[in-house]
């Protein structure tokens, strides 16, 4: 692959590749800007740059991840996604075959999610000035009337629900990147959650907060929420689902699954009275089969996330500064 806007043949080639795999009526308009019908209600827009090593991992690749990540950000506002846009930065020399694989996976993810990629752009940078491929996606969605999902609605007493097991994505990425061979291959949970969210909202339109615990894991997400909303959280360790192989890998690696990233899970805060109904709706959806009520919001002034451990202790679930250096003396 040659660099720059000049390589006309190459630009054609790439355009053709995208056209072939991502084809849909809006993209096919072929304009620099896609035209959409205006819809009523409130619009949501979210953008995310995707940088990941390795590009291909069990359960997905940067293509599918860039679709899921952004759709989830839109969905966490309670919105139904309308379309996506994609911007590629390619490093000169990036294998065309790999690019095609990524675009195909992106297309498959978008079509499975039922959301078209409306417009896109590609730039090629000099060798050494990129890391293979970066993808920025933007998602547009519409929030149904009556739905008001916001951190500010987190209130003491609410139930905390989690849609499934934690740690899968982070451990899958790490094992692949560092060539760690566990007995069973650990697969990323990368998935688009908007249909699960739609089911949840239909059952309980009054859901207060939705979040996807990605980087920093469940611990970071809940701490962020607690701090922003001025509340505390109380978790029950035994209720938090962790798959056996993920737990074993985390144990060996010395990682706390609470701090490991996810790409297909959500946490939800809702009124206690709605919790059971919401839980059964979540469990009826394929992406929420292992959903669980994992705790409750508290009125802790210190805004701490605390967790009752399996042996009955009460531990502070902290928010680490970055590198995990042991604190024990």
């Amino acid at each position, binding site marked *: 692959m040659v660099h720059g806007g000049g390589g006309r043949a190459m630009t054609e080639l790439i355009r053709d590749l995208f056209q072939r795999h991502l084809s849909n009526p809006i993209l096919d308009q072929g304009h620099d800007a896609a035209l959409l019908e205006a819809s009523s209600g409130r619009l949501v827009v979210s953008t995310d740059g995707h940088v990941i090593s390795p590009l291909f991992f069990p359960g997905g690749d940067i293509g599918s991840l860039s679709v899921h990540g952004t759709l989830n950000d839109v969905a966490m506002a309670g919105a139904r996604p309308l379309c996506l846009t994609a911007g590629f930065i390619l490093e000169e020399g990036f294998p065309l075959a790999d690019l095609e694989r990524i675009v195909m996976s992106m297309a498959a993810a978008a079509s499975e999610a039922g959301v078209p990629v409306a417009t896109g752009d590609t730039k090629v940078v000099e060798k050494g000035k990129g890391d293979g491929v970066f993808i920025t996606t933007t998602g547009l969605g519409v929030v149904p009337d009556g739905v008001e999902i916001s951190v500010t609605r987190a209130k003491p007493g609410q139930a905390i629900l989690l849609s499934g097991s934690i740690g899968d994505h982070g451990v899958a990425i*790490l094992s692949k990147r*560092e*060539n*760690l*061979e*566990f007995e069973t291959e650990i697969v990323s949970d990368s998935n688009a959650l908007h249909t699960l969210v739609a089911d949840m909202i239909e059952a309980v339109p009054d859901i207060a907060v939705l979040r996807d615990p990605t980087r920093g894991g469940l611990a970071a997400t809940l701490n962020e929420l607690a701090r922003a909303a001025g509340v505390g959280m109380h978790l029950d360790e035994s209720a938090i689902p962790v798959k056996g192989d993920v737990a074993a890998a985390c*144990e*060996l*690696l*010395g*990682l706390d699954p609470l701090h490991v990233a996810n790409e297909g899970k959500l946490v939800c805060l809702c009124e206690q009275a709605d919790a059971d109904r919401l839980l059964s709706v979540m469990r009826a959806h394929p992406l929420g089969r292992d959903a669980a009520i994992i705790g409750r919001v508290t009125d802790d002034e*210190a805004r*701490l996330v*605390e967790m009752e451990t399996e*042996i*009955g*202790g*009460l*531990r*502070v679930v*902290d928010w*680490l*500064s970055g*590198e*995990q*250096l*042991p*604190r*024990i*003396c």
Partner: protein
Amino acid sequence: MHATRVRVTGLVQGVGFRPFVWHLAEEEGLSGKVWNDAAGVLATVCGPEDAIIRFLCRLRAEAPPLARIDDIRSEPDTSVLDDAFAGFQIVTSIAGEVKTGIVPDAATCPDCLSETFDPKSRRFRYPFTNCTHCGPRLSIVSAIPYDRENTSMASFVMCSQCQAEYEAPADRRFHAQPNACPQCGPRVWIEQSGSEVGTSDPIKTIARRIEKGEIAAVKGIGGFHLAVDASNSQAVETLRTRKNRPRKPLAIMARDLDQVRTYCDVGEEEADLLTAAAAPIVLLKSKQNTALASGLAPGTDRLGVMLPSSPLHHLLMSELRRPIVLTSGNLSEEPQATKNAEARETLGHIADAYLMHDRPIVNRLDDSLVRVSRSGKAVLRRARGFAPAPIRLGEELRQSSVPVLAMGGELKSTFCFLRNGQAIVSQHMGDLENRRTLEDFQKTLALYRRIYDFDPQLIAIDSHIDYLSTQLGHRLAAETGAELTEVQHHHAHFAACLAEAGVSPEDEASLAIVLDGSGLGTDKTIWGGELLVGGYKHFERVAHFRPVALPGGTAAIREPWRNLYAHLQAAFGSDQAFEICDSVFGDRFAGRNLSILDRMIAKGLNAPLSSSAGRMFDAVAAALDVCAQRQSFEGETGLTLEAMARPFASIEEGYPIDIDGGETKIFTWKPLWATLLKDLQAGVDRGRISARFHVGLINALSKCCLQIAQERKVKRIVLSGGVMQNELLLDGLAERLRNTGMEVILPRELPSNDGGISLGQAVIAAIRAEI
């Protein structure tokens, strides 16, 4: 006729000092007055010169048991006229004017004890008997001034008899805030499954139940304890299971010194500590083949013993033929319960019955733990009976005036206030990652700030940003506008010992051997086996243990086998390490994914480098099959290795340890491992191997230390850090170094582990502020 003005400084308020002065003056026929002020106690005495001289001598010699006199100064008082005083008077202090510190809780004094057991006394068998010379203090205070309404005795209105005692200067209960009697004070009762069990004598009844093998939750001074018959192995095992405390040593309470001697060797200093007002747990050498259960302190020949610290405990022990296990009332790793409701909830599935009382515990206080070894006394945990007595600092440190708050560490947390050269170190509070401990820490800090009217201008924190104490420090700094200053972990260990020993900031440099678990170093790696030269202001890392990976980070601290592999890998490389694991330690690594561990080390994947001495002990322990899979409590490997080595320590040669030269010297372990592995394969006794390890460390450390001392012209050596709680290592090093003429100083009143670092942080910060 002479008039003399007397100023007494030290711990002289709230300990019956003014009535004591009054007594002395009356006995010597002196007139005058005595009162408290912000600096201590002041008195004016008038009378014949010889009587005044006798008065001054007796003032020091006969001071009340809880008083600590730092200084007595007297000068002629020319302002006094001959007939100024008719008799001697106690001038009661004006509220708000005097900032009285709080003294530690004190065990029952002899007078109160005989009253409690005197059938003719109105306090016969009363479990809350106390006076000015004894009783609860810090444990019951909720605010200042230290008056009854600011203690948990507020709701108990004194009967007329108690009130009369309280008001009579001649009475030893004059102004004794927790004064009480069966008429007006707290009461005890027995509870089971949430309801009171009718009995005429709850203490006798609970004693019978303990004798039957039941587990009793007993509300004490600083928190709930769990009690079982210490000679009933099965009861002890049940307690361990229910408490989820498989191997950590359990302390016992004995009736009196004679009973202690039945089970343990008791030296003179140990006897003094056992019977001191602080009534700590004293670690003693236990005798063989006694009636006590074998599972009290598995793997060691030391046993923690304490004597009764309140009339309640005296009464309980008088009903029992044998000592009882008395361990903190909690689930392992949780703080002990202090509130009745909390105890009902958290101890419900542990205790068969409760001995409750209705005097609330305001401040949680664990039992203090001390030890006497050849190097002298060492406080291993400082809480009930010791805190919050100020730590005396040297003259120069007393000059610093900036109020400093030091936040301490993460485990074994304490905080420290430093102002006008007086250091107040809080009681041990424990692991801040525990939610309830963190809450306690904040609550206690707030209380101390009120008691000492303390507004920090400077907040000292550890350089590890993830310590919850550090985060709290940041938050406090934002709230109060105080400035923050970071102190390196082992520098704090170093400085704490210097400060306690009264070393001046102007003194020449010292050399510290800090052997520790882990603390963040200035190079952002984890330190823990350090030789530092310097003082309060600066330090230089002159030697250290070779950094070895901690594969799995915190997991490597819990699981010694990880350190064994990391050490073998560091010494011999991966291929040989695999082979050794296979041929020498097959079963110890069975089912462990060594290739992933190896990759983690190679890639630095959650495998930070650390020069930790604690992890070195872990690695050797794992090699000797000592809790190789997991430590059940922090420091288990060290404790066990030390006990194993003890019989052989004086007869074994040490393992060779290389010290690589260069500007900074590095202890490397390849020769040690090579010899140790050979010994293992030759079937050498594991105790001998452990002894050879200990002796090897002592040899290498003292050799390196002396070389550096010579190069740097250093004459004073500091020994500190958590690993220095190892008696063999500490005594061995101290003796070796002293024999060469070095001055060796050790932590005495504060633990050498992280319980002491708040003091070090505080003095370093204070001295930085002076520059």
